């Protein structure tokens, strides 16, 4: 115990984080060199960007929600999410690469809906032939999906609906049925009504505007709140507390909307036929648990290294209760989403689970449920467990990885289909992001006292007892 609340960012720690980053990059390169496809790279890039950007943005949520609830206990832990929230600046840049990539064609992540041809109902035969030659690889693969079955069913009713066996036919087989009209146009066999109908919302321009707006709003609030908090350290008046309160309320309104739309735009739109109104919450809770686990791990690290002398098991108990409670809530959302579609049994809706539970994702599908629900439920159920640093360390580390897995299961099936894997690339890219995240977050921690002693509710936090 050195009892100090000024974090010293020593070079040993820096080297360790940079080492993690470099090993991550090397593993990623090894993964790419040993045959991982670009689709797989971009899917993983999106996954890690969403996870780490999400963790940093949820850190803002942690601060603002507690501020609005006038919570006193969290003052002791406040500086950690505050430092984490500053990573949103870097996370936003990572996300910008994906946004630019959509326009520049780096990746095919959103190719399902970012495809003007499938939105045209009538096309000329030349256009059709051109399209089919251009997309010959995809039309035979996983992209030649149930949408064809669906649109045929909707529009001419002539084609036989042979569900789930689309691979046995070639797209061109259907051309025999095409009869041109007076303008020389035929009904586009690739026309996808579900995607065409969503065009008003799900189009490149609006998607880009929305995505950039989310990033600007989040990063703006993160910078503002950090600035207020640091000024409070110097001046100690309630002025900054009240200003923080105002911006916290604003952020919560922003977050109420953007948490859902972010999940629709960046994750759910990978598979634009399928939709779920719970999806936004589901993503939010997944990221929220990952964020809480990160806070707990950083706090325990600091505590074990002699900082945060006043932080005691009561504060950690509260965070443990959050992790426990939200893991149950995550399961509640998982199950609510699943059961309604299972009961309804509409092919276009159940397909999302068939893609996961009846394919080679099966193992991950069940593992996801067990690790994210049963594991924290049984380990954190007891009061002693939530107050035990070792138990919390293990549970928090496992849950961060298992929520990575949760996103893996959401992102991979529509982007790489059966050709997924967890190898050098996946591990490497996760380590790259984790290394950079830790390097920058600990850098932020070193910039200010670990406990905001001038905060009006500081005393209350000291006396926290449950």
């Amino acid at each position: 115990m050195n009892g100090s609340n000024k974090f010293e960012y020593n070079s040993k720690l820096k080297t360790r984080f940079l080492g993690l980053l470099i090993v991550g990059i090397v593993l990623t390169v090894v993964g790419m060199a040993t045959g991982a496809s670009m689709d797989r790279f971009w899917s993983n890039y999106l996954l890690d960007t969403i996870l780490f950007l999400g963790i940093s943005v949820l850190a803002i949520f942690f601060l603002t929600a507690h501020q609005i609830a006038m919570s006193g206990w969290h003052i002791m832990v406040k500086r950690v999410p505050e430092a984490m929230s500053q990573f949103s600046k870097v996370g936003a840049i990572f996300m910008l690469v994906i946004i630019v990539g959509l326009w520049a064609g780096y990746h095919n992540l959103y190719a399902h809906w970012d495809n003007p041809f499938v939105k045209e109902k009538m096309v000329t035969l030349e256009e059709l032939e051109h399209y089919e030659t251009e997309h010959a690889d995809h039309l035979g693969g996983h992209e030649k999906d149930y949408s064809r079955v669906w649109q045929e069913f909707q529009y001419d009713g002539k084609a036989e609906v042979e569900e789930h066996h689309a691979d046995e036919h070639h797209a061109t087989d259907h051309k025999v049925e095409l009869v041109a009209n007076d303008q020389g146009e035929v009904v586009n066999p690739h026309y996808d009504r579900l995607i065409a109908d969503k065009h008003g919302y799900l189009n490149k321009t609006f998607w880009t505007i929305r995505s950039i707006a989310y990033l600007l709003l989040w990063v703006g609030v993160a910078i503002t709140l950090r600035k207020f908090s640091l000024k409070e350290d110097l001046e100690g008046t309630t002025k900054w507390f009240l200003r923080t309160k105002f911006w916290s309320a604003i952020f919560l309104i922003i977050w109420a909307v953007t948490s859902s739309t972010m999940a629709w735009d960046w994750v759910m739109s990978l598979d634009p036929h399928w939709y779920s109104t719970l999806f936004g919450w589901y993503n939010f809770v997944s990221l929220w648990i990952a964020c809480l686990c990160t806070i707990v791990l950083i706090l325990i690290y600091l505590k074990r290294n002699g900082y945060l002398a006043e932080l005691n098991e009561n504060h950690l108990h509260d965070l443990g209760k959050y992790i426990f409670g939200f893991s149950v809530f995550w399961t509640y959302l998982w199950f609510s989403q699943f059961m309604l579609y299972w009961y309804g049994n509409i092919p276009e809706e159940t397909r999302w689970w068939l893609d996961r539970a009846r394919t080679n994702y099966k193992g991950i599908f069940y593992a996801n449920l067990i690790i994210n629900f049963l594991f924290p439920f049984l380990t954190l159920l007891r009061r002693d467990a939530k107050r035990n640093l070792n138990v919390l360390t293990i549970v928090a580390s496992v849950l961060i990885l298992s929520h990575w897995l949760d996103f893996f299961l959401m992102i991979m099936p529509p982007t790489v289909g059966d050709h997924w894997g967890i190898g050098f690339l996946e591990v490497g890219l996760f380590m790259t992001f984790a290394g950079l995240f830790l390097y920058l977050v600990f850098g932020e921690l070193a910039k200010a006292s670990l406990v905001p002693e001038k905060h009006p509710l500081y005393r209350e936090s000291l006396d926290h007892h449950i």
Partner: protein
Amino acid sequence: MANKKIIYGLYDDEVILIDAVKKVRAEGLKIHDCYTPFPVHGLDDAMGLRMTRLHSAGFIFGATGTLTALTFILWVTTNNYPINYGGKPYLSLPAWIPITFELTVLFASVGMFLTYLYLNRLAPGVKAEIVDERTTSHLFAMTFELDEHTSDSKKEEIRKVLAASGAVEIHEKEL
């Protein structure tokens, strides 16, 4: 119960009470119980009470509820009265989960509620043992149990320690 004799000290502040509890325990005296008008944080720790085992009982009640629901629905839907709902198999676990959840919560909460009443000897019509009526509004009591073997010198010692630890009143009473 009629011949249960106690000696108790009354305090007018919870901070003094907690310090007094620590002091009295340090003297080696065994406190019977403390009565306060509102929950006092840190009093349990100061008195050295063990954690309640009510939540362990809750877990067992909950698990009983889970098992009851699952076995009963299993028996009804596959054995006693199988009905085909929308082409689903008779053994449809997802459809049972909501009921299982409800029954788990019901068993756990009702079970814990009744256990709590039993442990605290509370029920409609039962007369509560109130040491001093003022402990329900503004005073804090620390009590010691007495029996026929308790010597006068021991009583005297308790009175002294209570007075020294800041008690505003000290009484002896038969409940």
